[in-house]
């Protein structure tokens, strides 16, 4: 079967602030619902994007409430691709890794949750060299499609 070109579902630019995370979740939920993505799949994707935005706000921008995040969501027949762009100083991807779960302690779960919820997680360098790019992919299995 011929693979369709990726369709841009959402381009959303938002201040990198904690009180704007709910806006990101709301916009993403709505676009996934309109696209017919199942509730279970949308739940994982929204959580992963929310955790990724938190990491950008807290670690890339240092929690100062400055800067912006741009979220782009694209879809083909078989997958969702979500790209998060920030304009903070470059972060070394080697420094980003989930903590072991065998130790019970609060905190440090965000990166683990992103990797568990998504099928692909890639840290990329923007072509213009400014900021950071995070590419997330969720495969659309038949049961991930709603009606």
């Amino acid at each position: 079967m011929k693979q369709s070109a990726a369709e841009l579902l959402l381009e959303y630019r938002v201040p990198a602030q904690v009180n704007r995370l709910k806006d990101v979740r709301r916009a993403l939920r709505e676009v996934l619902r309109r696209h017919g993505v199942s509730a279970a799949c949308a739940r994982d994707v929204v959580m992963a994007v929310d955790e990724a935005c938190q990491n950008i706000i807290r670690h890339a921008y240092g929690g100062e409430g400055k800067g912006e995040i741009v979220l782009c969501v694209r879809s083909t027949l078989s997958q969702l691709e979500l790209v998060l762009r920030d304009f903070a100083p470059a972060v070394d991807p080697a420094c980003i890794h989930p903590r072991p779960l065998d130790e019970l302690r609060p905190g440090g779960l965000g990166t683990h949750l992103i990797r568990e919820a998504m099928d692909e997680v890639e840290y990329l360098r923007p072509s213009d060299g400014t900021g950071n790019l995070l590419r997330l992919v969720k495969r659309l299995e038949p049961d991930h499609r709603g009606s």
Partner: protein
Amino acid sequence: MEVEVRDEGRICVVRLSGDVDLESSPVARRALLASTERSRCVLVDLSAVKYIDSSGIASLVEAYQSARGKQIAFALAAVSPEALRVLQLARLDKVFTIYATVADGLGA
């Protein structure tokens, strides 16, 4: 997010509802930790949680550890599907004692 705290006999029931996220989880954390100061048994009702992120989960873990350190019983009840999914992804669904309903937790 909203937090309700009530006493059911000897058990302190903490009911979280709505979105427990990075913005609201400090409120949840304070309520949960305070509950471990005032009661020997804490039951956290998660039935109305629509969304919980890693900071909300961290608040539950911190309260659980505080309770365990004081030999206080600490359990979750009526965990919504949204919250259960995150607990499962964090491999914490086998760490917490989880009751199917609040009534089950109160009767335990």
